[in-house]
C-alpha cells in the first residue's frame, strides 16, 4: 500500500462523521439520479411496447390482381422502418368486422357483396418510431400504384404520442435539474467538509508539505467515498425497485412489457460516475483552498 493510500485510510478513520456525511450525500444523489434513469428506461420500454400497437392499414384498389400481392408484400417489407406486412383478404376483413361489431353484425348479413377491400396491415420497428416517421412511411406506401388508401393510427394514438412527448420534455428538464442538483449537493458537501478542515490544510502547507502531498489523500478519499456512495445508492434503489415493482398491477408486468432494473453497463457507469464526482468535488474545493 502506498503511503498516500495509507494516509487516506487513516484520515477516513479520524474524520468518521465528515466521511459518513459525504458518503450518505453521494449515495442519496446517486439514488435520485439513478431512480430517475430507472423510471425513464422503463417508461421508454413501455412507450415502445405501446408503439408496437401502431399499425398502418393500406387498402388496395379493388382491381388489384391476386398475383401482384406477394411482390407488393416484399416491396412494403423492404421499406425503411417496416417490421412486418400482413396481408388480410377482403373475406378475412369482413369476418373480422363481423366479430368486432358483435351486436350490430346482423346488418352485415344482408349485404349483396363484400364492400371491403383487400388490406395490408403494416407493423413498424419499435426503435425507429416517431409520429413523423409513421406519417412519412404512410405517405410512401400511399404512392404505391396498387394502394387505394392508407389509414394509420387513431386520433387517440396521436394524442397519446403528443402527451408522451410532453412527459418526455418535462422528464428531461427534471432529469437535468436533478443531475445538476446532485452534483451541486455533493460538491457542496465536500466543500463544507474541507472548509471545516481548512486549518489542517493550512498547517500542512506551513510545515513544508507540497500541494500534491496534501491533495493526494483527499483525492483517494474522494474516490473511496464516491465508490461507497455509488454502491450504497444503487443498493437502496434496488430495494425501492423491488418494493415498487412488486406493487405493480399483475396484468401489467406480465403483459406486453416487463419492468426491469438498470442494465449492467448503466450500473457500472453509475459507480464510475460516482467516483468521478467524489474526485471532482475534492478537486474543485482543494483548488480553492490551495490558491493563495
Amino acid at each position, binding site marked *: 500500500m502506498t*503511503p498516500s493510500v495509507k*494516509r487516506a485510510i*487513516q484520515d477516513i478513520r*479520524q*474524520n468518521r462523521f465528515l466521511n459518513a456525511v459525504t458518503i450518505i450525500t453521494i449515495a442519496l444523489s446517486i439514488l435520485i439520479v439513478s431512480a430517475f434513469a430507472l423510471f425513464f428506461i422503463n417508461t421508454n420500454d413501455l412507450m415502445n411496447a405501446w408503439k408496437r400497437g401502431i399499425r398502418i392499414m393500406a387498402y388496395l384498389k379493388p382491381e388489384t390482381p391476386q398475383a401482384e400481392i406477394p411482390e407488393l408484400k416484399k416491396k412494403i417489407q423492404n421499406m425503411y422502418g417496416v417490421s412486418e406486412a400482413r396481408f388480410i383478404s377482403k373475406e378475412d376483413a369482413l369476418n373480422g368486422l363481423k366479430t368486432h361489431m358483435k351486436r350490430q353484425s346482423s346488418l352485415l348479413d344482408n349485404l349483396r357483396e363484400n364492400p371491403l377491400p383487400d388490406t395490408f396491415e403494416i407493423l413498424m420497428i419499435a426503435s425507429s418510431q416517431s409520429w413523423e416517421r409513421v406519417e412519412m412511411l404512410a405517405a410512401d406506401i400511399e404512392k404505391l400504384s396498387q394502394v387505394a388508401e392508407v389509414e394509420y393510427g387513431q386520433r387517440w394514438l396521436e394524442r397519446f404520442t403528443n402527451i408522451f412527448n410532453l412527459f418526455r420534455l418535462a422528464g428531461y428538464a427534471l432529469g437535468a435539474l436533478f443531475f445538476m442538483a446532485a452534483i451541486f449537493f455533493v460538491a457542496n458537501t465536500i466543500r463544507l467538509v474541507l472548509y471545516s*478542515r481548512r*486549518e*489542517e490544510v493550512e*498547517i*500542512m*502547507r*506551513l*510545515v*513544508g*508539505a*507540497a*500541494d500534491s*502531498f496534501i491533495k493526494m489523500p483527499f483525492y483517494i478519499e474522494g474516490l473511496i467515498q464516491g465508490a461507497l456512495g455509488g454502491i450504497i445508492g444503487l443498493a437502496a434503489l434496488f430495494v425501492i425497485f423491488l418494493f415498487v415493482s412488486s406493487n405493480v398491477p399483475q396484468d401489467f408486468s406480465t403483459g406486453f412489457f416487463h419492468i426491469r432494473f438498470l442494465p449492467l453497463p448503466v450500473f457500472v457507469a453509475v459507480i464510475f460516475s460516482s467516483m468521478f464526482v467524489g474526485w471532482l468535488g475534492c478537486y474543485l474545493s482543494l483548488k480553492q483552498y490551495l490558491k493563495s
Partner: protein
Amino acid sequence: MIDSEDKSAIIRLFHVYRNYGVKHALIDITLDIFNNEFLFISGPSGAGKTTLLKLLYLAEPVSDGQILVDGLNLSRIPRKNIPFLRRKFGIVFQDYKLILTKTVYENVALVLEAAGEKRRLIHKKVKSVLRTVGMEQRLNSLPPSLSGGEQQRVAIARAVIGDPNIILADEPTGSLDVDAADLVMDLLKKFHTRGATVVIATHDKALIHKTGGRVVHLNEGRLQVTPEI
C-alpha cells in the same frame, strides 16, 4: 554564552515593511541574521515579532523591501517552490498549530512524510525526538487532550525533527515551567551546536539573560539593535 562562529549572513532583510491596512506592523527593518547564529528577537506584546518570522517563511508577503534567505530572494520564489523554502525552516508557532484530529505521532511525522522519508526512518526519528521533549508516553494522544505545555513540547518536537538549517521559535517556552523550558532551550542549543541557525522571538527577558546570544529589540514595528550581551 553562545558564540556565533560563522559570520556570513543566512537571512538578510533590507528595509522591510509590513502594513495591515493603516496599521504598520513592521517599519523599515534592515537586519542580517548570520549563519549558525543564536538570535533573540525581543519586544513587548504587539511589537511585530511574530510578523517578522511570518515574513521569513512566506506566510505573508512583505509590503515593501527585500528578504534573502540562503541567497534566495523571497519575492522571486515561484509558488510551487515555497514548500522547499519552508523545509529549510523548523518552526515553533506561537499558537502551536497542531492538527487537532491527528495524534501526536502523526503531527510530528507529517514533516518527514511531506519530505518523502521512508516509514522506518520516520518511526525511529519521531520516537526519539518525542523522547527528548518528554512526550514519548503520549504518542497516540490527540492534541486537545494535552495540557498547554504538552502541546508546546509537541510543537517543538515537530519543529526540530526535520533537522532544519534554521529554527524559528515563537515564544517556545511560554507555556512551560522552568524545568521544561530548560529542557527545550538545551535542545535548541544542541541543534545550534550542530550548525543550525536559531531565531527565538520572545518577550521573556529572563530567558534571554539566562541563555545569552545576540538580541535585537523590536518596538512598535521598529528595530533597536542592542549590543551583544
